[in-house]
């Protein structure tokens, strides 16, 4: 990026600006001591309290303040956190967590099994939501606490799974009983936990200006060891370009989720070329898909939705590498070939049915299904709602161009995220008969999430995220068997098989994996855990200044 030549007036301002700044003193960065890191984040969280707000921004802040019982390492293997070890018994109907000793809350109170019992019995299993549904599904019983450092989870069926304790909404932020017990739902909203939360995490909140700046100080008694820096400031800069400029001017030391699919590859190259700059880009499990709608209202209007050959014809008409290449102009975005993200290598099944790009085959499949082109060469005119917060407009444009030659005329309808969420997805009054959309609805990093999106029992009215009402008895059987399988190897095999069934039946066409980039000033070092998607799960704990 080069600055345009200055106009005469701008030159005047330059002189004027220089005069002003010399009189009031150029002190930029002087106020920052060496043991502080400033990270710019696009997230504008209005509360830090996950119990009142489960949206992404709050979660992204709260992971630095709270802890989970267990967590993920970089390959999504389960690692200890507040629980130092765990054991299954009774054919996986019982799960015993042995809690770490000597852990304290930020206010000095000890963390014990009583906190865990209170949190799961009265919050997780009582509040309406995906967590309650998941626990109820296996017949979870109240937590037993034989001593202060043991929490025993029992259920009517085998099915305890570590993923439940990591990725379910707000389950991953164990709350302090001594502060919250007896507080009514209504009082939670104005509770001090919204701005000065007490957790067990590596960082304590120093001050918080909602949507502006979160200043945190190291928790001296953190159980994994004190953070190596004294202070961490998360500064909200919503505009990616403004964040980039703040970084270039040396005002922030890192950019958190800066690229997030929306920027251009050229911008990525520009920032990579800056001095002392490390750019970490990665694809992650957020799978962008072209989704078919199986709600009765949609199938009644578009009977071809139920025809597997038509769905396959769509798949053959899309050239994924070309789509990604043209839309992201050379940025390393990964095309997706399965309905579970291949970034979780241990659970991904690479041997599922593929749909190579073959427009001729696509056309003949459409023909065979009775979808003949009209005089203008168009077989279907289809509205395509999407939200450009999640899927860049350019992806939809390229997709539209790609499908036009086979006779599919998409009519893209870009929507702002909240409008999209309420008109199309969850709202009981939403557009139920829209045949297609492009969206992510991620099952998360582990295959246990597949059920909440593809199992017929998980439609939104029953507390799941199968918003398109997809129903496949063979898949249901596999996913249900997996959920209650006591043997871990057999369980994984069920999930592998489920991925194969999904790609056969094709309820959605996988397009690509979302791509994120972080930018770090090389003055700072960091653990790989904070530079991968798992930072959403682990927060910014291990960051230090290079001497």
């Amino acid at each position, binding site marked *: 990026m080069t600055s345009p030549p200055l106009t005469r007036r701008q030159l005047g301002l330059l002189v004027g600006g220089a005069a002003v700044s010399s009189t009031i003193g150029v002190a*930029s960065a002087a*106020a920052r001591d060496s043991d502080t890191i400033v990270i710019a984040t696009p997230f504008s969280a209005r509360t830090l309290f996950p119990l009142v707000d489960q949206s992404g921004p709050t979660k992204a802040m709260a992971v630095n303040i709270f802890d989970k019982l267990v967590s993920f390492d970089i390959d999504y293997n389960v690692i200890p956190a507040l629980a130092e070890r765990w054991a299954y018994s009774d054919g996986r109907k019982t799960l015993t967590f042995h809690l770490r000793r000597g852990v304290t809350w930020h206010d000095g109170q000890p963390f014990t099994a009583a906190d865990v019992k209170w949190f799961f019995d009265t919050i997780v299993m009582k509040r309406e939501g995906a967590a309650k549904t998941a626990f109820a599904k296996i017949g979870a019983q109240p937590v037993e606490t034989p001593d202060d450092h043991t929490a025993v989870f029992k259920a009517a069926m085998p099915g305890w799974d570590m993923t439940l304790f990591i990725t379910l909404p707000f389950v991953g932020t164990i709350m302090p009983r001594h502060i919250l017990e007896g507080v009514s739902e209504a009082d939670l909203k104005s509770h001090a936990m919204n701005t000065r939360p007490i957790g067990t995490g590596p960082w304590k909140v120093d001050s918080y200006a909602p949507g502006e700046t979160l200043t945190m100080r190291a928790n001296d008694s953190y159980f994994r060891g004190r953070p190596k820096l004294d202070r961490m400031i998360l500064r909200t800069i919503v505009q990616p370009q403004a964040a980039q400029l703040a970084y270039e001017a040396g*005002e922030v030391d890192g950019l958190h989720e800066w690229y997030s699919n929306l920027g251009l590859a050229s911008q990525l190259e520009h920032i990579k070329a800056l001095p002392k700059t490390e750019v970490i880009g990665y694809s992650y499990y957020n799978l962008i898909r072209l989704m078919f709608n199986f709600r009765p209202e949609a199938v009644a209007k578009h009977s071809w939705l139920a025809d597997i050959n038509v769905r396959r014809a769509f798949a053959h008409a899309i050239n994924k590498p070309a789509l990604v290449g043209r839309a992201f102009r050379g940025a390393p975005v990964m095309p997706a070939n399965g309905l579970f993200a291949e970034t979780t290598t241990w659970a991904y099944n690479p041997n599922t049915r593929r749909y190579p790009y073959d427009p001729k085959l696509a056309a003949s499949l459409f023909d065979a299904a009775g979808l003949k082109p009209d005089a203008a060469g168009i077989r279907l005119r289809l509205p395509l709602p999407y939200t450009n917060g999640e899927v860049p407009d350019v992806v939809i444009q390229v997709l539209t161009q790609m499908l036009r030659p086979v006779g599919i005329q998409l009519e893209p309808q870009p929507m702002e995220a909240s409008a999209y969420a309420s008109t199309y997805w969850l709202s009981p009054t939403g557009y139920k008969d829209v045949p297609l959309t492009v969206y992510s609805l991620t099952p998360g990093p582990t295959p246990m999430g597949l059920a909440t999106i593809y199992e017929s029992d998980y439609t939104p009215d029953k507390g799941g995220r199968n918003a398109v009402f997809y129903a496949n008895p063979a898949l249901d059987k596999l996913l249900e068997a997996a959920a209650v399988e006591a043997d871990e190897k057999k369980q994984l095999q069920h999930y592998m098989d489920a991925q194969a069934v999904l790609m056969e039946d094709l309820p959605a066409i996988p397009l690509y994996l979302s791509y994120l980039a972080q930018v770090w000033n090389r003055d700072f070092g960091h653990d790989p855990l904070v530079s991968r998607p798992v930072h959403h799960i682990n927060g910014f704990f291990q960051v230090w200044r290079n001497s």
Partner: protein
Amino acid sequence: MTTRRYLLGALILLLPTLLLVTAINFVIIRLAPGNPAILLAGPDATVAQVQAIQTQLGLDRPVLVQLAIYYRTLLSGDLGYSFSFRQPVAAILLPRLLNTALLGGTALVISVLVGSALGIAAACKPEGVFDRLGVAGSVVLYSTPSFLLGVVLILTFSVTFRLLPTEGMFTLGRGWADPGSLGDVLRHMVLPVATLSIPSIALFARMIRSSMIEVIGQDYITLARSKGLGERSVILRHALRNALLGSVTLIGLAVANLLIGSTVVETVFSWPGMGRLMYESVGLRDYNLLLGGFIVFSLAQLMASFVTDVLYTRLDPRVRY
């Protein structure tokens, strides 16, 4: 007497105008698709959970009932409760309003002063080099989008010369309580104020220039000159006072422009003001916060018009209502 009555009437009309504007805004916000309950509940919420939140927020009631409830709260002097901040709207708006006023007020004063000076200078020698350059330049500057102007200024003064901060109101970790905070805020103000005022300066300069040229051509100026008055006195005493009348109206309009402009400028510079707050609240469908913000904006605009009316009667004895 009649003037006073007119102004009093205008003042009394403020409240019904405000209530009407509120009703319009209320309906428009609800007409936009989107639902705060879904956003509050988060991506993993169930339909039941969304409905529970809707009931809790009163969003399941008919819109007219919601409007009636809102009016009742409003007339008791309360702006209601923000869904997303979980705080009273007034408590959220006030500090941000002051920040916006600081930015906008400074920009307004600078626009008027610098704009007038440039306009007068151009009018003194119409069709001169300065005038021609000024007219062309003002078109360019007035039509430059503020996000572009803001980014160009940041690139020049923050990234290249490292003279001024790119964003925020304070150096991180500082606040009003810290020593030297005034200088700190001033440094952070330079670029956003420049971004806000450059288009307004261009606008004022053009306006003053054309009304000055018109006034200077009139007989009484010729008379003043033939009386032997100095050029400075002719321009500043006789011509400017009359030329200013037209631009008083413009100040009223400029307030509206600055309020609108603040949304973009505050977002580019991460300035903790009303504009950015409103922009982010639209995405969250925080109805009460948005309405509160609109009310404050409308009130500011109405007050600006009112003050313009008052100023007219003071500046021009001929004006009678």
